[in-house]
């Protein structure tokens, strides 16, 4: 993926990246934030970086969401929707797991409580790789 002013994947080489696309109007995103916080806290020292890309039209809506769902991970603001277009997002929310060499290993559409364990397992296996 080429260098992007909003999100430069290359800058995160060596880290496992969890890139999540979210919006204030996306109801499943409220559950995903709690889970992403726990993933970031649990695996930060192993090399996991969670980045949540916000696609709200109005910044104020995103900030209101963050007040009631604080994030302990990096937020990128993309109101024009350039990053989801680039990543080929087909539904909200969508998350991408990128390995330490900067390649997209998996995409996950939607966020369901039932999928949390399988997602955590995928993160662990990518973290194990050098």
């Amino acid at each position, binding site marked *: 993926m080429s260098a992007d002013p909003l999100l430069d994947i290359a800058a995160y080489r060596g880290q496992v990246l969890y890139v999540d696309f979210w*919006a204030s*109007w996306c109801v499943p995103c409220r559950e995903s934030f709690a889970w992403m916080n726990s993933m970031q806290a649990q695996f930060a020292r192993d090399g996991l970086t969670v980045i949540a890309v916000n696609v709200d039209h*109005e910044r104020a*809506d995103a900030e209101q969401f963050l007040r009631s769902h604080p994030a302990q991970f990096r937020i990128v603001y993309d109101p024009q929707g350039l990053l*989801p277009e680039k990543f080929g*997002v087909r*539904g*909200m929310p969508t998350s991408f797991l990128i390995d330490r060499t900067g390649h997209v290993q998996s995409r996950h559409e*939607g966020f369901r409580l039932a999928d949390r364990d399988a997602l955590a397992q995928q993160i662990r296996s990518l973290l194990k790789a050098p």
Partner: protein
Amino acid sequence: MHIRSFIGAIVWAAGLLTATACSTLGVKPWQHEVLARPAMALNAEPIDTAIDDHIYFSKEATSGGRSSAGGGCGCN
């Protein structure tokens, strides 16, 4: 008369389906901020709709027709 109305309906529905299949209509999945508003749901007030349907069912010969599928935030 019934057959003609029925065929007309099929043509109408087919036209709409063709238009949608062309994907010239619609928005990107991350552009659902307005559609996600509760007031934009197709059956935003189910109790009001049910009460109205109940009243008009008792006073008129034709009833129902509405449903609610699609729209919304499109999440999950």
